């Protein structure tokens, strides 16, 4: 496994604190979401990203504001890292019309076009061809923005994955593919779903420059992402970045986790990206324990405000049910 090779830190104190804040925010936001789920405030599917926060934060921080981001149905972390407000995400999960997708999407369909955040895509691998198309448009329009597409290793077993890889390489489109390898496609382990378990080879097989990184280590992710993004932007070609990570929680709220050993989960938790990064900041003396405590309080407050916002949100009148099926400006 490739580890971070840089000795210099590619960010300053202020940024470092922001990264910690974002990872903490994602963690606590999702813990709160799970709590609200058990209170039946949030329904449907709820897929938690807990344990994988370093991937979304590390990769998205390497992007520019005008770059496109597409994610999966496990995307709360990506949405928050992209700068979407916790309020509108929580309201979306409540199904309220103040939500980022006006409550029409729910947990799996967070969208914010102003932030170039294109979901929230819940058909495994269905968004990879779309990402290729967005990259193709940038190329045709001679824009300098790139498209970043997150997906799990499970997606790499889909036919659409292979079609998208081939098209991306063939057309030389500026797309960064980020494979979040959390070792389980829902409840089936990598070794039971892929004949070739070395994920990085799946990009390389199509002639796409590929790399893998320890997805539990924020510094390593950022370093790898910075280099990958720089490559995609300067060369206008796709890049395939595998982030090896682990989901600490169940696949969804309906999952009894019969398929993995509790000891395995405990082992991975020792590599929790948040304490790791916290330790790094403490060692650098960029933060103190007291400041961490203060940050946590700030986050608690923010999340409470998000819950309050969602609670105070309103239901879309049912007479608007058929809105957003066709455009108002339609033919």
């Amino acid at each position, binding site marked *: 496994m490739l580890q971070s090779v840089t000795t210099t830190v590619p960010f300053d104190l202020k940024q470092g604190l922001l990264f910690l804040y974002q990872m903490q925010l994602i963690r606590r936001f999702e813990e709160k979401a799970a709590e609200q789920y058990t209170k039946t405030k949030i329904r449907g599917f709820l897929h938690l990203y807990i344990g994988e926060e370093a991937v979304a934060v590390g990769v998205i921080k390497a992007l520019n504001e005008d770059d496109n981001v597409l994610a999966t149905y496990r995307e709360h972390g990506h949405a928050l890292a992209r700068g979407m407000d916790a309020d509108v995400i929580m309201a979306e999960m409540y199904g309220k019309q103040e939500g980022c997708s006006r409550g*029409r*999407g729910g947990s799996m369909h967070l969208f914010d076009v102003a932030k170039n955040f294109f979901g929230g895509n819940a058909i495994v691998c269905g968004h990879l061809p779309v990402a290729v198309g967005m990259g193709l448009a940038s190329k045709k329009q001679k824009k300098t923005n790139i498209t970043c597409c997150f997906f799990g290793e499970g997606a790499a077993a889909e036919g659409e994955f292979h079609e998208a890889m081939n098209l991306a390489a063939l057309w030389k489109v500026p797309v960064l593919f980020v494979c979040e390898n959390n070792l389980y496609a829902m409840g089936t382990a990598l070794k039971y779903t892929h004949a070739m378990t070395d994920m990085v080879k799946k990009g390389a097989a199509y002639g796409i420059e590929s790399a893998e990184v320890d997805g539990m280590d924020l510094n390593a992710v950022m370093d790898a992402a910075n280099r990958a993004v720089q490559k995609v932007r300067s060369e206008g070609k796709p890049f395939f970045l595998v982030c090896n990570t682990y989901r600490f929680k169940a696949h969804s709220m309906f999952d009894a986790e019969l398929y993995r050993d509790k000891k395995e989960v405990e082992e991975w938790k020792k590599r929790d990206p948040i304490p790791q990064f916290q330790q790094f900041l403490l060692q650098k003396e960029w933060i103190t324990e007291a400041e961490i405590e203060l940050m946590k309080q700030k986050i608690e407050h923010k999340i409470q405000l998000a819950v309050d916002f969602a609670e105070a949100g309103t239901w879309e009148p049912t007479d608007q049910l058929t809105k957003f099926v*066709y455009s108002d400006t339609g033919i």
Partner: protein
Amino acid sequence: MENPVMKTTLTYREALKQGLREALQNDQDVFLMGEDVGRYGGAFAVSKGLLQEFGEERIMDVPLSEAGFVGAGIGAAIAGMKPIVEVMTVNFSLLAMDQIVNNAATLQHMSGGQLHVPLVIRMGNGIGRQLGAQHSHSWESFYAHIPGLIVLSAGTHEDARGMLRLALQSPDPVVLFEYTSMLNLEKEIDIESPIVDISKAKVLRKGKDITVITYGTGVYKSLEAAAELATVGIDAEVIDLRILRPLDDFTYLASVAKTHHVIIVEDAWRSVSVSSEVSSRIMEKKFYDLDAPVQRLCGVEVPMPYPAHLEEAAVPQKQDIVNAIKKMLRHG
């Protein structure tokens, strides 16, 4: 005196090509991608010569990856381009159905109105010439079932030439059906392409005795049947639905109120089809205007057989329409 309208005789294929050329000429954001559309000249020679005229950037050959390139079309549309994606035939479109149904048709709704997918997907549909079970499908109803899609059917040369232009103005995804068996068919049409309305069905022949509702390959067959019926004193009104989603109820319901008799003609399988939907709407809204039950002539429910005589027997022919209408009106 007005100037006489200049006429031209052209094949359905040439009409499609003219429409494509115009679309590419009119808007630099429009590009065509599909299997064999460039160097090969199009599987049905519809895009022959366009690569030379417009270049590789705008006429893109793609690999055999229906989900991949339809999905890429969706992405490009979201990002501001106006792609025309050619799926060679409807038969292969099921490989892209996830993209069409789960992405193109839903993104606007899932995003609460933030995203729009101005994409046109063209596909050849229906029987060709003895192409067998896997290459002869009539699957308009699959796509007409999906909220979020606009589904057009080019049953005439005018529409083969004109529908694409308006489809490209749609902010929402359009599935445009073209008909393989009509490619070599010649017709005389106006030289100037008038603006084609794609929000309404069209009465192609006025009549007072019976309404024939049809689309696609049923259109010319129904018009020929109506011409024959006229010789025995039956005056049939023929309506081309043209837009299979959203259906223009107004046009055919008005006709039903006038003629009190209806037959619906389509090549597609009978069960759960466009004809069953139209029949149902007539029953719901014009039941008391009917003098007889709505009748349907549809494709026989069998995978398309290879031999010519069986293929012919599997879809309604002109004579079937004539006979059915005579029977309905108790004529002869």
